[in-house]
């Protein structure tokens, strides 16, 4: 649903589909075989035929759609709210009560979907539907005079308009194909042709794609979900406790960005993929320590510098590319990185006209080098194994049962504050101006 319709207060197109679905439910409910059993309901001194109780409606919905009573009540409420079922007691209160309150089906003439100005194309279809539904309604409520009168009215008016409908429909279909579906924009024929051509080209390109077998891809999802199961608090809870349940922020404190000793789950996560290791500030620091020992730390420094170019300010790109060249790529550079000659040549060419993505090939090369070589060795190293052994496994704290013993929820320092402090410290260290904050991310 587009905001253009929202702003104007209408949700025409989107709601039509919902109404059609609700109408399907209503029709199913009135099915002579599988539908609801309707009986005479007593309202004060009148006996109303073909009515049902709120309780019956909920039971029927629960059985038909295999849902809980709560959900059936919710769905039933929607049907009442949109006028497909109306209450006989307290007609102004459009709520479904799960008791013996009587309800009846609304005649299709008064369905919300039929009261809205339908598009001309739907006009013919709608009139036909109303006619059919009113016949059904007529069959069921044959003794209910009002309904019969409505149906007759429908029949008469629809018969008169039939011919006009047909003519209109023919003309509309031509235009309809061109426009595709409402909301209508004025699209010229040329644009349609353009879209067709673009679509054809996109299809041709897509045909040439390399695809992977479903079985392999789907196994991937299974493996991923299984691997991360213990890390998903909604599935398995978290240690020491979910802060939202226990009001204890220990879990967040233990898993803060930089801690003296990380938790075991966190350290385990570094072994899931190279991205996990690099995305965690502590993991990255540990990896850097390891690389320093191996005398290949320049790779990680290079990668970080390239990330900075890719995601940094536009104005600083040229100067950053210069720095990277000086420190990592120039012959005899302090932290020279080992890239294959083809990529090196291409990068050096690109540096002459620096742009945001000029370092991408080189960065990718180094990234995969670290991933295939240094990363697996890091996972087997003593450094990592020690980290894993040292890591904390927090004790599960039980939530206090007594309300008066529950902890107070304290506010944490605003990230804006910590960011300012960090930036100030950074500024003092570097002696340069701090970068202005645009957000607290």
């Amino acid at each position: 649903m587009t905001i253009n319709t929202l702003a104007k207060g209408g949700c025409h197109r989107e709601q039509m589909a919902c109404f059609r679905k609700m109408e399907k439910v209503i029709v199913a409910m009135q099915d002579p075989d599988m539908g609801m059993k309707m009986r005479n309901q007593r309202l004060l001194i009148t006996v109303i035929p073909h009515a049902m109780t709120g309780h019956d409606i909920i039971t029927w919905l629960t059985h038909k759609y295999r849902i809980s009573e709560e959900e059936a009540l919710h769905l039933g409420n929607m049907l009442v709210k949109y006028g497909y079922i109306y209450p006989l007691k307290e007609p102004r209160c459009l709520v479904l009560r799960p008791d013996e309150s009587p309800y009846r089906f609304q005649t299709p003439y008064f369905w919300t979907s039929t009261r809205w100005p339908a598009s001309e194309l739907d006009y013919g279809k709608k009139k036909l539907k109303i006619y059919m539904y009113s016949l059904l309604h007529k069959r069921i409520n044959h003794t209910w005079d009002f309904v019969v009168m409505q149906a007759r009215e429908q029949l008469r008016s629809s018969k008169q308009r039939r011919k006009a409908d047909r003519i209109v429909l023919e003309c509309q279909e031509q235009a309809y194909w061109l426009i595709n579906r409402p909301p209508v924009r004025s699209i010229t024929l040329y644009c349609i042709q353009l879209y067709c051509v673009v679509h054809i080209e996109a299809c041709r390109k897509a045909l040439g794609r390399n695809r992977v077998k479903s079985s392999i891809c789907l196994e991937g999802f299974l493996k991923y979900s299984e691997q991360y199961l213990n890390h998903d608090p909604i599935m398995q809870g978290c240690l020491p406790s979910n802060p939202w349940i226990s009001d204890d922020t220990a879990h967040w404190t233990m898993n803060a960005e930089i801690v003296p000793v990380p938790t075991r789950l966190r350290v385990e996560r570094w072994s899931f993929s190279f991205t996990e290791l690099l995305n965690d500030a502590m993991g990255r620091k540990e990896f850097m320590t390891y690389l320093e020992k191996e005398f290949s730390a320049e790779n990680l420094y290079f990668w970080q510098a390239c990330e900075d170019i890719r995601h940094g300010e536009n104005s600083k790109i040229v100067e950053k590319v210069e720095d990277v060249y000086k420190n990592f790529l120039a012959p005899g550079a302090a932290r020279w990185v080992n890239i294959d000659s083809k990529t090196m040549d291409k990068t050096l060419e690109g540096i002459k006209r620096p742009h945001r993505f000029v370092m991408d090939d080189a960065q990718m090369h180094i990234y995969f080098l670290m991933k295939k070589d240094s990363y697996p060795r890091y996972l087997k190293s003593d450094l990592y194994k020690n980290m894993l052994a040292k890591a904390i496994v927090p004790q599960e704290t039980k939530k206090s049962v007594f309300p008066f013993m529950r902890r107070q929820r304290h506010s944490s320092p605003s990230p804006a504050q910590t960011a300012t402090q960090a930036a100030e410290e950074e500024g003092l260290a570097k002696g340069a101006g701090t970068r202005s904050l645009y957000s607290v991310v």
Partner: protein
Amino acid sequence: MACQGLQKGETLESLKRESETLKKKLEEERNKLNDVELHQVAEKVEVLSALSIKTRRVLKGHGNKVLCMDWCKDKRRMVSSSQDGKVIVWDAFTLNKEHGVPLPCTWVLACAYAPLSGLDNKCSVIPLSLDKNENLAAKKKSVAMHTNYVSGCSFTNSDMQLLTSSGDGTCALWDVESGQLLQSFHGHTADVLSLDLAPSETGNTFVSGGCDMKANVWDMRSGQNIQSFESHESDINCVKYYPSGDAFASASDDATCRFYDLRADREVAVYQKDSIIFGASTCDFSLSGRLLFAGYNDYTINVWDVLKGTRATILFGHENRVSRVRVSPDGTALGSASWDSTLRVSWSFSTGSNYIFRFIKLLFWVNSRLVLEFTVAF
């Protein structure tokens, strides 16, 4: 330009026909490698134990529909925008409001932690500072300009670049510092309603969904449309990547959510139920990707088992349509925003075994009336 493809004698009819044939051929190609369905593969996965997710925090303070919300990296703060023209930063844990920024535009459609965009066609970045007396609205900086409303926005990996989607049918990448347009993405034939950045290693792609029922995957560098999926039957309101980056889910007005695999290049699951009649407006994955939370226009949030394709549970509570659901960054809680002007935070009580032990212990030394009161207090 593509118009050069229009040769003499190529009428609209022939183009139509070619387009249809190619589309069919593409479907055939995609189906060739379709040797198994997701729910079949998922048969060997354990069935989810009964999920007990409850809403326990309600954030009241907006005067009108809440249109969007997002979590802060600190896992407890969130920002929300509303039709009353205000953007509020909350500490959801303590229920305190920390900042309130009034804006000139009343339809503030999207806020990611910091940028705000809306029906005035502009996307603004507001710096958040501690000085509560500071007029934050005055420091607002206009970054993105579209020719129609801006429906969604997201920061890329840093806060220096902003990606926006718009009602003018395009997406655009902007430099925050200068407000310059870095790249634009054309290909949708109707309003683009949502976008999401890929969490992949190379971090270069994003997916967008729009009113043309298509979900497109784009390369941020070249602006090219890499992949396209067209299987929804109505507007796509929200798209979200699976945590591994190999797939994404979409929520649509046709009352279904669908799961698309990027490597197999096809739709692999449809999450629907006969009793779900109203469209889904938003969706998000749990941390492991096993659960998909989807907010619907009938005020409910349905929780789907992504692998098995079944519905795990349903959350009630909102009194108007749910406009946005987001799982917190560490996966501990689910935040939801709604047109009933409230935000709610829900979490799972699944691992409640320790509570049972407590309950049993209590049974022995406290009289039964007291025990009843305490269990109700949960």
